[in-house]
């Protein structure tokens, strides 16, 4: 039995993902987003989070999934990693679960079209549910954004 992890579960394109609770600042309903010009298309803009301006990115866009219109269930999960605060738009955030760190397996090469380096691993929990654990510092890696920008140009 390894270390117990508390994980926030959210869904994105019918898959379930997990982020450790201690990295999540808050979960918000969708608020009006102010577009920031000259940024990659998955950066939706900035929101006012209780007086702090926080950038918001669409995780679907970030992972190269097709972007879809937001729904009543859409949420913004604000995470704090490497002194950065960023909000993720996800399809829904619905659960907090305890998982055993030992049950996290290293990710297979392709999961739902997402590059393996964004993933920390796959965890099994409950009745054979699979949870994709995100590697946040890779997701927020800025060097890659710069590369993306160059690709777009």
């Amino acid at each position, binding site marked *: 039995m390894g270390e117990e992890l508390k994980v926030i579960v959210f869904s994105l394109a019918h898959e379930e993902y997990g982020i450790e609770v201690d990295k999540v600042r808050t979960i918000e309903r969708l608020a*009006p987003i*102010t*577009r*920031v*010009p*000259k*940024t990659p298309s998955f*950066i939706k*803009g*900035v*929101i*006012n989070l*209780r*007086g*702090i*301006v*926080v*950038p918001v990115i669409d995780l679907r866009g970030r992972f190269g999934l097709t972007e879809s219109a937001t729904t009543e269930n859409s949420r913004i999960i604000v995470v704090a990693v*490497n*002194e*950065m*605060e*960023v909000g993720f738009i996800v399809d829904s955030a619905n659960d907090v679960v305890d998982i055993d760190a030992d049950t996290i397996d290293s990710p297979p090469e392709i999961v739902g079209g997402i590059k393996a380096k964004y993933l920390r691993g796959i965890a099994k929990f409950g009745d054979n549910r699979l949870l994709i654990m995100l590697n946040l510092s890779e997701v*927020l890696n*800025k060097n890659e954004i710069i590369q993306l920008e160059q690709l777009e140009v």
Partner: protein
Amino acid sequence: MDMNAYLSMFIDESNDHLQSLNENLLRLESDPEDLSIVQSIFRSAHTLKGMSATMGYEDLASLTHEMENVLDLVRNSKLKMDSFIFDTLFKGLDALESMVQDIVGGGTGKADVTAIVASLQSIVKGDYKTAGASAGAAAAATGQTSGGAALLDEFQTSVIQQSIDSGHNVYYIEVEIREDCVLKGVRAYMVFDLLGKNGDIVKSEPSVTDLEQEKFDRSFTVFAISTLSQQELETQIAEISEIEKVTVALLDLESLAMLNNAAAKEQAPAAPAAVPAEATAKEEAGKQVGAARSQAAAASSAPAAVSRTIRVDIDRLDALMNLFSELLIDRVRLEQLSSEIRRNDLTETVEHMTRVSSDLQNIVLKLRMVPVDSVFNRFPRMIRDLAKSLDKKIDLVITGADTELDRTVIDEIGDPLVHLLRNSVDHGIETVEERLAAGKPETGTIHLRAYHSGNHVFIEVEEDGRGINRERVLKTAIKNGVVTEEQAKQLSNEDVNMLIFAPGFSTADKISDISGRGVGLDVVKSKITSLGGNVTVDSALGRGTKFAVQLPLTLSIISAMLIKLGSEKYAIPLTSIVETGIIQKDQILNVHGNRMIHFRNAIIPLVSLGKVLDSPDFNEHNESETEIVVIRKGDKWAAVTVDEFIGQSEIVLKTLGKYLTNIEAISGATILGDGQVALIIDPNALIK
């Protein structure tokens, strides 16, 4: 008692007192006659002494005590300030500062201060000018330290001698207060009051202040000149309640001499002495009592003068600020709701809340702002010391010390400014001879200015020294490999001036300990750049150099013009705006494919904001007339087309966070009254 609980308070207050000592000593140096300054210096020193003794920092207390002794003589006009005394006091202050720093760093605050203490003591004795110490003065010094009988210094002795010479009664009075007396200070004051009414007090042991603050055991002694007879005086003093015992002895020249020489407390019969009165004796004695009284008054009013501030963690201010922004959003929603519901009492309440919250907003925003004075105040002293050590004459003129800057910036700009000032003193201002030879006044002037300009604060260091020598700068730059000879020829004067900020550059012919190690200016530049600021230099050979530091007002309020671009709102800092206007489509000219307009007898480029910002739902081509904002960057102007003006507003600058950095044409964001984020446009990016 756990002293640690009081340590941070002690450190904060010590620093405050040291700063005020520093400032007041400087003021006194320029105006040595002003005794009121001495009073405040004395008070600060005295408080510092008390605090450090309470906290158990004996070295700190004893050094302050010696400085206090000197100051005591000065404020009682028994000692004239001169440069030696100033230097010694400043040295003492430095030692105190380093001891406090040691305590801050977790040390014990111990330091070897014997040299400074010795020179302070020699000042008290008065023998720092004349090598031979007079017996009287020496006795005075030992008398003070032993704490026994009250003995006199030279000046007091001469006052008493003159009084006796002019036929006045001089008494040596010993008063003992009853053991069970509760308010010893009051009783002592009553004795002094009685003596003061009927004459003058020359000297008391312990000093008047100590007596007032009950810093004595049970007895004290006084030398007084009085019109009353010995018996009258004795009975009158004895009539004051709670006085145990009083001994009054009439002094004559002989007993005075005996007192001084042998430290004897013998009483001697009166001896007739009739020399024509010297007016000066009386006058001086009068002055002295006046000083003693005002000092008593000052002491009693001192507690009220303490500034009423508290220290708050800056994170808490941030939290307050953010909570307030939340409140603001709800306020706007409430306003909307109340206008829909249309109930009078609701509307009134919401309006009142609006007023209160806008007052609150002002206060919250100002809380983080600190006057730049808290950095500037240590510079006069620094310049004085530097000038002295370099044998130059320099005036430092500070303007705009009340300019306010965000606390985080204030904390960082101290060191860069020290570098710039040191550089000005060392390399800028010439020696007195050079200045005279160049036909300049022998005293050089350094102006230190701070002022607001929109969302920036400018701090300028300008001196009237020798200016930057292009040839010498280039020679050094080439020698140090900063530029090649080829490049050097093409550099403009401004470029050459900026070379002095290059790493590893120094034009000083000889290395001094003030600057000239070639590490100064590039450090300044990188520090200021890291603060999001900029430093420029402007120089005229032979006339002086001006360094201008431009600093951003992070998390501060700026005035901005809010504009609309389709559905989006943006803010343009008002400082960059020259004017706003409307132009017709047919007024737009095409020059080489660039759109230009006529504006005030000039042709300026027309920039489409919608295009720069990729606006999704605004197309200016559909409009027959366009609103424009004319902006400037230095002396370049440009017109920017916008959709619609919303109006001028005070906005709070916010960063976009660390994830979004270096976004073209956007310098930050702000939160509007309705809770929405609006981006702030960087006008400098619009002008190429």
